[in-house]
């Protein structure tokens, strides 16, 4: 499912080590578009990512560091990277291998967020 956002997700999934990418509605955690490897439960991941983004957003605002521009959750066998598109409230999400080039994925996520926003 990509709708009209296929080209936006392509920007991200073409980076080596990226397993998939999604656009998620930040307020309700619904998948807007996705390009995921088989076996990844997009809807559930989207809901959790949106919830996590919400908590993080509130905590960061309270701490005075402002809304998050980019965040990534590191795990033993991979990483989840997220950029919130401010204007639309959409979260641009990537799932990647642990040794992915974080800086490059970040740039592509920011670019995708601009397009999606």
């Amino acid at each position: 499912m990509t709708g009209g956002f296929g080209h936006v997700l392509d920007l991200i999934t073409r980076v080596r080590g990226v397993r998939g990418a999604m656009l998620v509605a930040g307020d309700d955690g619904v998948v807007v578009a996705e390009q995921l490897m088989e076996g990844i439960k997009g809807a559930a991941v989207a809901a959790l990512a949106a919830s996590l983004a919400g908590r993080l957003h509130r905590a960061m605002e309270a701490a005075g560091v402002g809304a998050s521009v980019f965040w990534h959750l590191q795990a033993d066998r991979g990483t989840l990277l997220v950029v919130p598109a401010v204007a639309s409230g959409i979260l641009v999400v990537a799932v990647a291998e642990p040794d992915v080039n974080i800086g490059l994925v970040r740039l592509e996520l920011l670019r995708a967020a601009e397009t999606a926003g």
Partner: protein
Amino acid sequence: MADDIRALSTQLAQDPQSLVFLRLADALRRKGQLDAALRVALNGLERHPHLADAHDLYARVLTDKHDYARAFDEWDMALRIAPNHTGALKGLAFLYFKVGDLAQAEAHLDLARRVEPDDPTITQAIEMVRGGASPPSPEPAPASEPAATAASPTAAVSAPALDESRVFAGLEGAQEGLLLLDAAGRVLGGALRHATGGADVTDAVAAYLAGVSQEAARTTKLLGLGAWTGLSAEGRAGNVHLAQPSPEALLLVVRERGVPLGRLAILAQRATAMARRWLERQG
């Protein structure tokens, strides 16, 4: 020397807020009682976190213990507080020399010489660096430390169990940018100040972070990524890092935007190790 230490210990016991801890820790360090020196320095740093001399002293003890990475951070901190601190400049020069960065070593000594042009030891150190010899370390301790006992003169100042009450004692930003929480968002240690306003926001942030650890764990499990090891976030005015010192605890590190996420992760690793030790001691 022993009499000095005893007298200084007594003075400090009578007035724990005084700066006599600087002289006491240095005396202990020179005598080779490095663990005792470390405790005194850490205790003093806890009470005077914005005193450059306290960071300098702590760095000297760490250097004597060959803990160069933490010594570097302490001297770096001393310079942020007091950019012309010659002790810190000389200390960093020594560490740069040790890792083979002669240019940085000389640059730091040059800065020190500009501050204290009449100090012959700085000129001598510059000449040594230029000649490829190591500049003198910040007055190394002469001997290994005898075992501390309860009757040790330092016992009076070695603390009402410093680490028992202060999770992040001695760590940069312990009272304004480090927070340890339990799973329900209750504060276990550290404190947080608003990045721009300076107000205490410890409880508010803790409340918002309740449940984050479990949610992160569910997300990574669902993705087949295994256990989560950290969460880094870049904000418009600052950066944050979350880590999990134990399954029931969450650690938050907050720093200004100028501190890159990579450095923040290193700082978080150190804080996580301290938090883990503290949690273990709590049983």
